[in-house]
C-alpha cells in the first residue's frame, strides 16, 4: 500500500497545518512576485521580441502551473479513487478551478504575445491546441462534478476523467518536439541547461516560484473550504434526520 502523506490522511492535522501554511505561502508569493516583477521590468528589451519579452514573465509561469496543477489534480484523483480518501477528493476538487484559471491565463497572455510576434492571435499549433485541450479537461472535470448530486459518484467519475486527462500532459510538454511547431521549444528545463540569458532567466524563475507559492496558498484555502462544506452538509443531514 502506498503511504499517503500524514496530512492527507488526517483532516484535523491538515486543518491545523493549513491554518498557518496558507497565509505563509501567500506572503512568500507576494514577496517573490514583487522581486520577480522588479527584475523583469529592470531587464533590457530583448533584441528580437522588444518589450513583449516582459509578457514571458507572466505567461511562462502560467503555462508551467497549468501542467503542475493538473499533475496535482491527477495525483489527488488517483489517491481518491484507490484509497477512497475524502481529503484527497477535496484536494482534487479544489485544484480544478485554479488549474483552469492558470491555463486560461497561459492561453490569453500567449495570444497577446503571439499577435505582435507571429502576426496572429491564435494558430492551431500542436502546443496551443494541446493546452486548449488541457483547459477543456479542467472545464469538463468541473462540469462533471457539478452535474452529479451524489458526492461519491461525482468523486469517482471526476477522478476517472482526471486520470484520462493525465495522458495529455506529456503531449503538451513534448508537442514542440514531436511535431513541427510555431511555438518555441523548451528553453529553461533542458538536459543541457537553460538557453535563456540570465537577465531574463532570474525574473522568470522568481515569477515561477511566486506562482507556485500562490497556488500552494490558494489550494490550501480551497481545500479548507471543501472540508467545511462537507462538514456543513454532514451536519445538515444529521439535523434533518433528527
Amino acid at each position, binding site marked *: 500500500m502506498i503511504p499517503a502523506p500524514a496530512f492527507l490522511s488526517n483532516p484535523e492535522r491538515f486543518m491545523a497545518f493549513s491554518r498557518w501554511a496558507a497565509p505563509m505561502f501567500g506572503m512568500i508569493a507576494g514577496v517573490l512576485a514583487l522581486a520577480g516583477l522588479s527584475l523583469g521590468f529592470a531587464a533590457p528589451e530583448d533584441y528580437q521580441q522588444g*518589450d513583449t519579452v516582459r509578457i514571458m514573465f507572466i505567461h511562462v509561469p502560467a503555462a508551467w502551473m497549468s501542467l503542475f496543477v493538473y499533475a496535482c489534480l491527477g495525483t489527488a484523483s488517483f489517491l481518491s479513487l484507490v484509497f477512497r480518501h475524502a481529503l484527497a477528493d477535496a484536494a482534487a476538487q479544489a485544484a480544478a478551478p485554479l488549474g483552469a*484559471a492558470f491555463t486560461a491565463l497561459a492561453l490569453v497572455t500567449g495570444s497577446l*504575445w503571439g499577435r505582435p510576434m507571429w502576426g496572429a492571435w491564435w494558430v492551431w499549433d500542436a502546443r496551443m491546441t494541446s493546452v486548449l485541450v488541457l483547459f477543456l479537461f479542467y472545464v469538463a472535470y468541473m462540469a462533471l462534478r457539478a452535474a452529479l448530486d451524489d458526492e461519491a459518484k461525482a468523486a469517482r467519475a471526476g477522478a476517472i476523467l482526471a486520470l484520462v486527462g493525465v495522458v495529455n500532459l506529456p503531449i503538451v510538454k513534448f508537442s514542440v518536439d514531436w511535431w513541427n511547431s510555431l511555438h518555441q521549444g523548451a528553453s529553461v528545463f533542458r538536459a543541457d541547461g537553460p538557453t535563456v540569458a540570465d537577465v531574463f532567466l532570474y525574473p522568470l524563475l522568481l515569477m515561477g516560484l511566486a506562482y507556485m507559492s500562490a497556488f500552494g496558498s490558494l489550494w490550501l484555502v480551497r481545500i479548507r473550504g471543501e472540508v467545511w462544506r462537507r462538514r456543513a452538509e454532514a*451536519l*445538515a443531514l444529521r439535523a434533518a434526520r433528527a
Partner: protein
Amino acid sequence: MFGMLDFDASPYGAYVWPAFAITALVFAGMIATSLAHARRWRARTEILRQTAEAAEAARRPAPEIQEAPAP
C-alpha cells in the same frame, strides 16, 4: 546587473499592459473566490454546529433535583 525599472513598453504597450492587467484580474478573482468559498462554508458549519448542540441540549433530560438530606 540591472538598471532602472523600464515601464515604457512602446510600441507594444497595447499587448504588454493588457496581459499584465488580465493576470492581475485573474489572480484577484482566484483570491477573492477562494477566500469567499472558505469563509462562507466555515460560517455555515459554525451555525449548523451551534444549532445541533442546542438541539442536543434541548433533548437531554433535565437533571433531577434531589432534596437535601435532613440535618
